[in-house]
Structures are given as structure tokens and as C-alpha cells.
């Protein structure tokens, strides 16, 4: 039994919101052996982060543990005071946060933050700890391992910060590390590097870890066992290979199946939109170089690329928010004015947009009726009864019933908000909808619902989509055509099959091979192509 490091029994946690207590964790057991890595997966609201923090005996402000025990190496953390628990935090258990950029103190040098807790607890002297930190930086493949610690957080990239944070977590040689979605904010090519570095170092020091994520393929690479959570309860737990090969519960199977979404071929039609040799810049900084993209009517063109590739800028040029410096945007063979203000109402009506953050894309003070009704009035001149009827019709198109018509955005779930945004775009009766990362902020199952809805609407209304995303599996699921962008240039484009079948452009190759697969050996066997 000495083998067991962490034993959580019957844990219940509640949180205070809307003037009352809500259960967040409803009685969860968790057992972790020394050196074992457990993956915690689930959708947002499943309580996985709360559980991860609770494994350290920590609760967010506004939350409290109401029942259960958290026995870490023989001591029940749930019974300790904060001052007593502090002797464990940063000492025998450490934490790696989701956003390293926000989780480092901007005022201190990286190496000082890396060794702070190690020195505080007297695990080693400052000089020893710093020397060790430099070794860890090297082990994590950080460039300039000897000097990178002298920099401030804003001076290094997100992927590097995430690795520095892993070094910080490893510095006191803890028994347990909690990884809370550590690669979610990273681009795929960066994610691979970070995953590799983290796995290597956890194996090297035989540290136990809890790895929290919503990405199954990622957890498959990292974890020995996987626990699936939903609504604050355990769905099932099994070792990684068994879980991937034969999930028992329906919910787990549904998580697995999202990636199997497929789109049927659509007949080729004329081009509704042609972006021709467009270059654009923000001030003096050029961001797009000679970009050409065609969108055939009734089809989905996915623009895929990492942050900084210029994919969202393409959308800003097409909609006229950022007038291009060079080149033309043609709509059905007619050149569109570069500036939004120079376009007439009809030109504006035909191209609509849906955004990543449905939250911020809606006026929080307007009801669903007002949100959807406004384009009806503005573009189509509908008022009174006719407008009201059309709003209800649009709601039924997005599979929401009339009850939602008087709600405010704050009374909707993430998926419902995005559906309202879709209805608002549809209200203008557009021919082309630009979808900018519309599913990135959503859980996988909700994502699937939104993608299915978009596909159904496309068939029914012969809509064209320009679908901007960084997520390759979404691209696979919904596209007819794929455009790969890097550093403001189109590196490859064509039909989905043509782009996804080798031979690839080297960058496309790197992008595709960086996407984690549902195979526990994928990372081990991975050989990434070299970019020249």
C-alpha cells in the first residue's frame, strides 16, 4: 500500500454563484500510484480543473470542500489549514497552469520564479537550484538554456514559457505535478514539442502526475490511466490502451466519435468569391502577401494555419474591415470596394460573419429577439408581425424553440450562443458566411452539433462557407477545399483530398503530422519533417 501517493475518497466540492451553492464535484474517488500519470478528461463544467486543484488540497475562491478526504502520502489535506497545506504546495506537489503567459509574474525574471519555491523550502541553495534549473531548461529543449532564465516572461514565446513552467514545477522534485490543460493554448506544432518535453521529464524523474485536458489524443500520449468526468462525477476509468480501444460507457464513446464526422462531396459550382493576389498590412507591418483564394458556391473552403498565419486577416479583408493594399476581392465576378463604408447594403448583406467568441459578439443587453431581429429590419425591412414570425422561423432552423426568444445572451449556454450568432448571420439571407474559429471555444460534443447544423444549412440553403480554423480535425470533417496558410502566405490549396494526400508542401506536412492521433504510441514513433 505504500505505493499509493494520492487517495481521494468521496470528494464533494461546491461553488458559490447566483447567490447559492452549486455542487461542482459530486463524490469522486481517485487513486494515484507513485510515478503514475493519470489523464482527467471531460468537457468544460465537468469539474476536471476543480478536481485537479483539489488533489493539492486547493480550492478556488468561492469554492469549498464539503465532504470526503484527500490523503496525500498518509496525510488528509482536506483537514489541514492553509498554512499547513502551503508546506506541500511548491514543495511536494506543483502545478502547471493552462496559460503560462498569464501565470508568470511579469515583474520577475524567469529563473527567479523557477527556483522560488525550491529555495523557500530549503530544498537546495539558490545557486544549486539555479544550476539545476538551467539543466532542466536544457532537458526541456529550451534554446539558450544557460541564459533564457535571465529573461522576463514577455521576452519569450508561449511554447517556451510553458516549458519553463514545467521546469518550475519540476525544480523542487515534487512527488506530484498537476498539469492543467498545459498545451490547450498552443499551436499544434508547438504543442508536440511541449508534450514531448513534459513526457520525457516526468518519465526521467518518475514523478506522478495528473494531466487535465479535453483533448483525447493528447491524453493518449501522456497518461497511463484515463479517468472520464462528466457533471462532477466519474464516468469510467481504465488504463489508456483499454480506454482507447474499448470504452465502456456511451458518453465516452460519444466523445470518441466526434472525430468521425464526415462530409459528403458536393457538386462543383461557379466561384462566388475570388480573392485575387491580395496583400495587406497593419500600419507598416505586412501581414498578407499575394493571397489568392476561390470559394465555389455551395461549398466549404477551410483556411487553416497557426496563430500569426494571417488567416483571420483574410476575413477582415474580405469583409472590408481592413482594406487591402494590393489585389482585388471579387464577388460573383464583380470587384468589391475595399472599404466597408464604400460598399452598398446589398453587398454587405450577401457576406455575413460568425465569430469565435459568441459571448463578445452579442450585445449582452439585447434579447434573442432583438439580436436576430436587427438584421431583418436593417437588410430586409421587416417589422412587426413579419419580423416576429421570421425570428421564430430562424430559431427553428437553428434547432432552438420559441422559449429562447426573450432570453438574454447570459441565459444561454456556449453552444446556444453560437447558434444565435448563426441565426443572426442567416437573418440577412447571405450567400457567403465567413466562420472565424466558430467552434474553437466549444466542447467537442457541442462542436459536433454546431458543425452538423452548419452542414445541414449549407445543403438546404446552398450556402458557401469560408471556414477559418487552426483545428485540423474540423477541417477534415467539414471542408470541400482547403487552404493552408503560413506567415501571411498561402502555402498550399486544393480539394480536401488533394491537400491531405501526400505529397505535401513541407509546412503542410509538418502541420498534419503534428496533430496528435488517438494512438498511445503516436508521440513515441513520431518523426517530424524538417522545415527548410
Amino acid at each position, binding site marked *: 500500500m505504500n505505493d499509493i501517493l494520492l487517495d481521494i475518497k468521496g470528494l464533494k466540492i461546491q461553488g458559490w454563484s447566483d447567490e447559492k451553492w452549486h455542487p461542482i464535484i459530486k463524490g469522486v474517488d481517485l487513486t494515484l500510484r507513485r510515478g503514475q500519470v493519470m489523464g482527467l478528461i471531460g468537457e468544460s463544467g465537468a469539474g476536471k480543473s476543480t478536481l485537479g486543484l483539489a488533489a493539492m488540497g*486547493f480550492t478556488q475562491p468561492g469554492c469549498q470542500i464539503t465532504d470526503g478526504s484527500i490523503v496525500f502520502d498518509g496525510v488528509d489535506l482536506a483537514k489541514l489549514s492553509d498554512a499547513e497545506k502551503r508546506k506541500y*504546495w511548491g514543495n511536494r506537489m506543483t502545478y502547471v497552469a493552462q496559460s503560462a503567459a498569464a501565470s508568470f509574474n511579469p515583474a520577475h525574471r524567469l529563473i527567479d520564479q523557477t527556483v*522560488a519555491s525550491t529555495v523557500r523550502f530549503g530544498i537546495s541553495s539558490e545557486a544549486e537550484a539555479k544550476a539545476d534549473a538551467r539543466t532542466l531548461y536544457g532537458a526541456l529543449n529550451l534554446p539558450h538554456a544557460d541564459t533564457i532564465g535571465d529573461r522576463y516572461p514577455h521576452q519569450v514565446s508561449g511554447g517556451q514559457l510553458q516549458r519553463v513552467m514545467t521546469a518550475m514545477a519540476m525544480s523542487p522534485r515534487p512527488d506530484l505535478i498537476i498539469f492543467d490543460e498545459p498545451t490547450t493554448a498552443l499551436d499544434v506544432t508547438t504543442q508536440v514539442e511541449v508534450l514531448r518535453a513534459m513526457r520525457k521529464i516526468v518519465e526521467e524523474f518518475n514523478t506522478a502526475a495528473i494531466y487535465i485536458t479535453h483533448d483525447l489524443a493528447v491524453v493518449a500520449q501522456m497518461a497511463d490511466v484515463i479517468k472520464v468526468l462528466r457533471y462532477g462525477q466519474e464516468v469510467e476509468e481504465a488504463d489508456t490502451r483499454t480506454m482507447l480501444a474499448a470504452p465502456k460507457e456511451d458518453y465516452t464513446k460519444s466523445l470518441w466519435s466526434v472525430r468521425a464526422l464526415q462530409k459528403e462531396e458536393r457538386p462543383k459550382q461557379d466561384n462566388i468569391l475570388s480573392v485575387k493576389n491580395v496583400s495587406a498590412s497593419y500600419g507598416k507591418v505586412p501581414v498578407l502577401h499575394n493571397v489568392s483564394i476561390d470559394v465555389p458556391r455551395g461549398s466549404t473552403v477551410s483556411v487553416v494555419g497557426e496563430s500569426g498565419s494571417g488567416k483571420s486577416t483574410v476575413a477582415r479583408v474580405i469583409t472590408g474591415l481592413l482594406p487591402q493594399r494590393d489585389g482585388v476581392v471579387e464577388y460573383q465576378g464583380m470587384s468589391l470596394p475595399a472599404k466597408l463604408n464604400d460598399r452598398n447594403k446589398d453587398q454587405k448583406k450577401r457576406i455575413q460573419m460568425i465569430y469565435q467568441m459568441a459571448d463578445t459578439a452579442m450585445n449582452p443587453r439585447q434579447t434573442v429577439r432583438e439580436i436576430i431581429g436587427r438584421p431583418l429590419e436593417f437588410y430586409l425591412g421587416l417589422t412587426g408581425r413579419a419580423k416576429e414570425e421570421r425570428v421564430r422561423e430562424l430559431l427553428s432552423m437553428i434547432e432552438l424553440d420559441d422559449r429562447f426568444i426573450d432570453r438574454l445572451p447570459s441565459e444561454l449556454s456556449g453552444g446556444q450562443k453560437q447558434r444565435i450568432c448563426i441565426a443572426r448571420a442567416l437573418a440577412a439571407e447571405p450567400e457567403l458566411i465567413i466562420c472565424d474559429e466558430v467552434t474553437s471555444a466549444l466542447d467537442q460534443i457541442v462542436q459536433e452539433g454546431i458543425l452538423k447544423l452548419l452542414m445541414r444549412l449549407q445543403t438546404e440553403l446552398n450556402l458557401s462557407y469560408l471556414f477559418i480554423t487552426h483545428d485540423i480535425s474540423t477541417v477534415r470533417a467539414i471542408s470541400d477545399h482547403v487552404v493552408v496558410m503560413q506567415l501571411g502566405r498561402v502555402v498550399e490549396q486544393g480539394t480536401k483530398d488533394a491537400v491531405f494526400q501526400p505529397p505535401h508542401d513541407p509546412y503542410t506536412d509538418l502541420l498534419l503530422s503534428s496533430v496528435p492521433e488517438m494512438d498511445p504510441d503516436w508521440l513515441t514513433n513520431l518523426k517530424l519533417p524538417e522545415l527548410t
Partner: protein
Amino acid sequence: MHPVLKTVVQRLGLGLVTLFIVSIIIFAAIELLPGDFGEAVLGQAATEDTVAAFRRELGLDKPAVLRYVDWIAGAVQGDLGNSFSGRSSSGVDRSRPVVDLIGPRLWNTMFLASFTAVIAVPLALFLGISAALYRNSIYDRVVNAMTLTTISFPEFFVAYILILVLTSLWPIFPSLSNISPDADLLDRLYRSAMPALTLTLVIVAHMMRMTRAAIINLLASPYIQMARLSGASQREVILKHALPNAWAPIATVIAFNLAYLVVGVVVVEVVFVYPGVGQLMVDAVSSRDIPVVQACALIFAATYIILNLIADIIGIVTNPKLLHPK
């Protein structure tokens, strides 16, 4: 050149430009003052000829632009001209240079401001940081309530309450702060204790509350949670993780209050009969002693600009993103 040094030099240049523009505004505003010094001194009975002669003697008959150039050229060399008061229609000129007039007064004002700042700034910082440290405790509430109370009353009221308590009921300090120029430091401190105490009560609240708010504002940051999760105590979280990122807003509010100590204390000066520059300016306005008014206004403007410049520089050097660019 280091980018921070460059920014500081730029700000310094901008400060000079601001001061120049302010000097024009001061001059123009005084031009717009109703009435005329000549008439004010000589009275209604004076003939137009006498008034005109008097104006000529003072140079008031020259065009405004010329007078401005004379004034600003002198000011740059430290010569703020001669006061109008002390002259009379009889031609006897007992007027004194503005610099001599303002000098001792300004020194008194600076002394009071520094005395107050030395008490008020550390006190406000201590109260603000400790209130953040023990947020929502009884201590926090008491400190907040007390400072709010003192800032809510008008200055003269606070002053009279203090006089009641500290000079009448328990006679510790003198209620009159008439300092003679040759008083030694201890005597000066003793005599200006009452106004300094009053001003402290007036300005502590603002600085303390901003310090507390700036720190608490940062406590929701992910890096603060990270610091807690690495075992830092509440004290360490506040002092080492929140405070270093809060200096910019704190410095701004301190600069604002210090500037107030120099330019806005006339009420307190009057209550305690303290010979500061505020009273001088008010007297000068009522007697239309234009050179003195202009000089005071210029000094006040320069005070504001310099203090805000210092606050800006503190904001820059405590921001690692500016201090250590990529």
C-alpha cells in the same frame, strides 16, 4: 541610448512644451481679468492722464505679445519682474522683485508639503498594503471607514476639529503657524505640525484606497494563484507578487496628491495663518498684482508637470516590458 532613457528625455521635452503652452494660457487668462491695476491703485478719482502715465511706467501700455515675450524671457533667466504693489501715485517706488516676494513663501510651502508627504505617503502605503493583506477583515473596514470620514469633511472643518482637540482640550501644538524666517528646524516642525496633520488627514484616504485597489485588482491574476500554489504566504503574495506590478497606478495617485499639497492648500494656510504661497497668490489676485499672480501660476504648473513626470518615470522603470524590451 537605452529606450527608457529615451522615453524619459522625450517626456522631459514634452513637459517643457506643456509648460510653455501653460505660460501662454496663464498670460492670456490674466489679460482677460476684469479691471485695471492702475485704476485699482489710484482709485476712481484719478484723472485719465495720471492713470495713463502710471500704466506707461509699468509697461502696461505695450502690446500684449511684447509684454508676454518680456515676461517669459525674464522668467527663463529667473527674473520674474517686480511686484506692482508698493508703488503709489505719488511716484514713490517701494516695490520688490517678485522673486524676493515669493521665495520665502515658496520655501515655507515646500517645507509644509515635504513635512506632510513624509508622514502621509508612508502612512498611506502602509495602510493600503495592510488593508489589502487583511482584505474584508475588521481592520480593513475600520481603515477604510476612517480614511473615508476624514476625506469627506471639508479641510477647514478637519482643521478646526484638530484645533479643538490638539490645542484647546489637550494643548500640544500651537494653533497659529506663523513661522519666522530665522526659526530653527525643530521650531518649524513644531509650528507647522497642525497644518501638516490636517493635510495628512485630507490626502491619506485617496492614496491609501488607490494602493489597496491597485493591489486587490491584481489578486485575481492567474500568476497570483500560481504564486499561492507554489506555497507563497499571503504576505509574500502581496509584497513580492502584487506590489511590484502595482507601482504605476500608486505613483500616479501619489504625484497627484503631492501636487495638491503645493498648489491647493490655501484654505489650510488661512486657517493656521501659515505664510505659504497660496495666501500670497490669493492676495495678489485681489490686489491685481499681476507679476506675482503670473509667477505663482507658473510655479504651480511646473510643480504639476514635474510630479507627473516623476510618476510616469516610476511607471516606466517598474514595468519590465518597457524596461527590458524584447
